[in-house]
Structures are given as structure tokens and as C-alpha cells.
């Protein structure tokens, strides 16, 4: 993972006018954090960052650019490209106004997992280094190393990266092959199995507990790249789909509706779950629908620009369990 090679490319693209500005990762306030960085002038490149913790999906910021005619460059990982596909299919961004610069990524690290693994508080760590297969964390007391394959985000283990014709430039052409963690036959729906195997009462209690913790901050919705409605259905002024106050009994309406609204669009980037302050297992809902859509209609979101979402289409000979 090298950021040094990133900088000159962005500089060049800004200089020759290919893009008006660049959306990239910038240094964050902690070692495990990065923040979105908008680069308009080469001088701003000094804050550029590219490391193991560049897990956020920057394409969500493209939602708001749909109205501008600016040419925007974005630093993307393989998984982020899928969100771009859905944004283009939903007419939210113009392919022509976009420059995708893909960085090679073989997995992003979940700081929470690091913390759990080495039993040191995030705040005690002052920095980290990459060492071959592992990561070394620097603390005042010394160095702690972990095997990086143990601390990836769960989406990274399921990475099915394939080079996309949408990408304008790859940072490292030779490393395309190695662009994902080397996991054979990942179990795509691992998380679901535990819940699917519960008996209905247990499942019901499980979800009731989860939904009751929701504080309706809407972070899950706001961060989602495919939640691009200018005014969300739950923010409509004249129609009360759910109460505006936090009524726990209506939380499930919100969460199930949200899951249905992103069904066939959700690419599994996991941002909703990552940003949830209450740590609701939102990806379980999304994954369930990804699985059902795949099994019923053989469709996956974010794969190509041509295929049409099965919720926008119909089949006369569809599976029909209704009487």
C-alpha cells in the first residue's frame, strides 16, 4: 500500500484538467481513522493518506454531486466500484464527469477487531507499521503485532474483486491479480446462518432487542451510497410513514423499509453497520436480501451497468408461492 505513487497521479490529473477536484482519503485524528479529503489544489495533497484503515466508501459523497457539472476524481477500492455502478444506474452521476482511480487493496483492517485481539485500548496506540504479513502497533510500552488476516473487515474476506471497465486508471497494474485477500470459497452468507438456524421465537426476540436500541440517528441511511433520494421517505413532511419522534415500536418499520429500499441496490459495502453508533447488525438484513435476490432472480448489485434490478423488472414465470 503506497501513497507516494498516488500523489503524482492526482497532481497530474488536476493539472491537465481531467478533473476539477479529487475525492481521496486524508489523515484522520487517530491512527485508525482517515477522513474524506477534497483536493482542489496540489498543496492539499500533503494531507493525502492511503493505508489499511481506508475502509470508508468515499463514493457516498458522490450522491450530492449529481447536480454539479464538475469533473470529479475518486480514489476507489475494488468494492467501492460496485457502488459507483449503482449510482450510475440510478442516474445519480454522469459517467463522463467521473474519473475513477483504483488503488490496489488486499483488505482493510477493522480497528475494533484489533482492539479485541490485542487487548489494548485504541487510544494507547500512537502509530502502526506494516510488516509483511502483519501489522505492528506502537505503544508507549512497546510494540504489539497482529496477523493482518485476522483483523480484516468481514466484507474483505468475501471480496470478489474483478477488474471493472469503469475504472479509468489502476494505480498498480501488475498487482491486479493480488487485489483481494487470498480466501478460497468464502462463505458469503456466514453471518446469516446463525440467525436462520434460530427458532422463530428466538429470532423475534433477537431482532426486537436490536431494533429497540436504535436511536434513529439515520447515520446508516446517510452514509449509504445507494440511499440517494434528496428527501428520504421518512423525512417527507406531509406523510407520516413513521412517527417523527423516536417510538421504539416503529423502529422495525424504519429498518425493514430501509433494507427493502436498498434491496437489489446494496453492494454489501457494510458502511451502514460500521457507522451505527449503537452497533446494530444492519448488514444481516442487507445480506439476507442480497441472498434472496440472488437465489430467486440470479441478480447481484454493482456487477455491470446493463443488468436491471429485479425489483424494476418482472418475470411472467417467476417463482410463485402464493395462491
Amino acid at each position, binding site marked *: 500500500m503506497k501513497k507516494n505513487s498516488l500523489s503524482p497521479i492526482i497532481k497530474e490529473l488536476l493539472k491537465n484538467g481531467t478533473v476539477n477536484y479529487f475525492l481521496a482519503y486524508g489523515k484522520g485524528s487517530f491512527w485508525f481513522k482517515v477522513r474524506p479529503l477534497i483536493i482542489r489544489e496540489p498543496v492539499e495533497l500533503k494531507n493525502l493518506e492511503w493505508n489499511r484503515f481506508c475502509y470508508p466508501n468515499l463514493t457516498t459523497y458522490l450522491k450530492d454531486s449529481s447536480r454539479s457539472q464538475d469533473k470529479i476524481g475518486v480514489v476507489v477500492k475494488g468494492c467501492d466500484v460496485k457502488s459507483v455502478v449503482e449510482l450510475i444506474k440510478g442516474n445519480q452521476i454522469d459517467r463522463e464527469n467521473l474519473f475513477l482511480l483504483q488503488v490496489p487493496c488486499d483488505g482493510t483492517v477493522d480497528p475494533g477487531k484489533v482492539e479485541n485481539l490485542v487487548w489494548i485500548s485504541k487510544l494507547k496506540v500512537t502509530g502502526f507499521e506494516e510488516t509483511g504479513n502483519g501489522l505492528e502497533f506502537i505503544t508507549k510500552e512497546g510494540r504489539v503485532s497482529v496477523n493482518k488476516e485476522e483483523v480484516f473487515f468481514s466484507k474483505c474476506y468475501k471480496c470478489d474483486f474483478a477488474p471493472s471497465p469503469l475504472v479509468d486508471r489502476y494505480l498498480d497494474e501488475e498487482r491486479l491479480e493480488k487485489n483481494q485477500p487470498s480466501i478460497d470459497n468464502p462463505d458469503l452468507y456466514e453471518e*446469516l446462518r446463525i*440467525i*436462520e438456524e434460530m427458532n*422463530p*421465537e*428466538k*429470532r*423475534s*426476540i*433477537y*431482532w*426486537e432487542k436490536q431494533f429497540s436500541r436504535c436511536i434513529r440517528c439515520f447515520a446508516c441511511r446517510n452514509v449509504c451510497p445507494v440511499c440517494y433520494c434528496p428527501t428520504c*421517505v421518512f423525512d417527507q413532511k406531509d406523510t407520516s*410513514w*413513521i412517527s417523527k419522534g423516536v417510538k*421504539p*415500536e*416503529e423502529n*422495525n*418499520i424504519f429498518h*425493514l*423499509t430501509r*433494507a*427493502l429500499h436498498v*434491496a437489489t441496490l446494496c453492494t454489501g459495502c457494510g458502511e451502514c453497520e460500521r457507522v451505527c453508533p449503537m452497533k446494530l447488525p444492519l448488514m444481516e*438484513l442487507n445480506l*439476507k*436480501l442480497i441472498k*434472496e*435476490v440472488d437465489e*430467486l*432472480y440470479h441478480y447481484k448489485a454493482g456487477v455491470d451497468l446493463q443488468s436491471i434490478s*429485479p*425489483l424494476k423488472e*418482472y*418475470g*411472467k414465470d*417467476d*417463482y*410463485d*408461492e*402464493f*395462491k
Partner: protein
Amino acid sequence: MEIVAFLCNWCSYAGADLAGTSRFKYPANIKVIRVPCSSRVNPTFILKALANGADGVMVSGCHPGDCHYTTGNYFTRRRLLLMKRLLEFTGVNPDRVHLYWISASEGTKFAEAVKEVVEKVGKLEKNPMSSIEGEIRYEKK
């Protein structure tokens, strides 16, 4: 027990009317909301009904291929199938939500369908989604 039924105007609502003119009896738990087409039924309406004290929801449209608007019910079929799978996943018994295809000539089928829904919903425990039971929203005069 409360069952909300969304009936499409052209087939199922007319089928329910036919059940009436033929005097086929069925339980009174069912409250019908008339919609032009089953494709007008937003899955969120169903969630809302379940959260608002309904014990079950029934949606009924024209038979696939016979939709008054030609293709509406094909969309309904996909939308509600996914929704049912999701509900089941969150612990809601799939018997709480029913989708039927009932034509304008199927008065008997409508009456039987209502009986079936009432019977199935009757076997279920209290609706886990509804916690508003008994709350009075309107100030009565």
C-alpha cells in the same frame, strides 16, 4: 383480532363484492382497504399495519397474467416475496402476511381465503411487531 386486507379494485375487490351478493359467510375480523392495483400496496403499508395493531395482513390481486394494468401484479409478486422472506428472517411468522390471487368471479375463493387467513393468524402468538395495543390515538368527543 384485526386483519387488514388490501384488495385490488378490478379483481379481488369485485370478488369480495361477489362473495357478498352470493351471501358466502366469513369472519368479520377483516377490514378492507381498496386500492386500484395490488402493485399500489407499498410493503411499508403492511409493516405499518402490523405495527399499528393488525394481527395479520392480506393482499390480493388479479391472477398473474390477468392484471387489469397487465403487469402490476408481477411487481407485487416480487416485492411481497422479498418482504415476506425478510419478515420471516426477523422472526415474524410468515403466516402473518398473505398474498392471494383472486379474480372478480371467485367469490367463494375470497370467502375461503379470509377464513384461511383468520384461522392461520388465530393460531399465532401475539404480534411481536405491535406494541401499541390499546393506545388511543384519537380524542373522542
